[in-house]
């Protein structure tokens, strides 16, 4: 059952990205271009998404398990650190270069554009590099 809800939620998420215009990199860049001809549409996407999700998340974050009996795994960490900010700044630079973030990259991958395939491969390479660096740090810490 949880597999089914995950799959359905994924489809709704993808349809939402396409409908919102979030999956159109040129439109994302027009939103990020404050000093050009600014297209504020994507701010409306965020507001609507948070507006709908606020109550369910307010309920979920105080539960121990989901409605289908899965453990509630919402992050509980609240402290800020350099990794969070530094990583987010790097992500923002990448987002500003091409106007593509991870969700839309997946949502338009099957529309048959080489540009998206290249972006996704480079993104996965970045994620793999992170995983490798993490493993090395963990190995060094456990050996010292």
């Amino acid at each position, binding site marked *: 059952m949880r597999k089914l809800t995950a799959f359905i939620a994924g489809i709704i998420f993808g349809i939402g990205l396409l409908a919102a215009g979030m999956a159109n990199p040129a439109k994302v860049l027009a939103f990020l271009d404050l000093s050009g001809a*600014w297209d*504020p549409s994507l701010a409306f996407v965020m507001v609507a998404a948070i507006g709908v*999700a606020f109550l369910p998340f307010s309920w979920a974050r105080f539960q121990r398990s989901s409605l289908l009996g899965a453990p509630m795994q919402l992050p509980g960490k609240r402290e800020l650190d350099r990794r*969070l900010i530094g990583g987010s700044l*790097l992500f923002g630079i990448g987002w500003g270069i091409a106007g*593509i973030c991870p969700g839309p990259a997946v949502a338009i991958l099957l529309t048959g554009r080489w540009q998206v395939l290249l*972006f996704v491969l480079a*993104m996965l390479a970045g994620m793999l590099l992170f995983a490798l660096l993490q493993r090395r740090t963990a190995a060094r810490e456990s050996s010292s």
Partner: protein
Amino acid sequence: MMSIDWYNFTPWSALLGGALIGLAASVFAVMNGRVAGISGLLGSLLAPGEGRGEKALFLLGILLAPVLWQLFSRLPEIQINSGWLALTVAGFLVGIGTRYGSGCTSGHGVCGLSRLSPRSLAATLSFMGAGFVTVFVLRHLWGA
């Protein structure tokens, strides 16, 4: 001076799409107990861990969304103007940045803000700020 691009401004589809994104994130949290953060889901598929089946199915739903969409209607416009070098650099930065920063537009921007996480607020301000600055530099300083 800020000027709004009224011609390309699409508030209604943005609100509708955003609401669907919020709905999908809510279903995933309330039913599966998980955060619909696409970079985190992608990253977790690159290493062994729990719940990979559900996570993969959520991503599969996003991946298939344009295919399902096309059964009923024409896909909305998807315009990518970046060249291969920009796409490669952007993808790599998005990949490594979202992993170090523990999230992207969906995990921090939608889910994190919906559960009032101070970390997600800091991350969202960081990547939005970096995105605004990057587009300004590339379009108005460099590209001018």
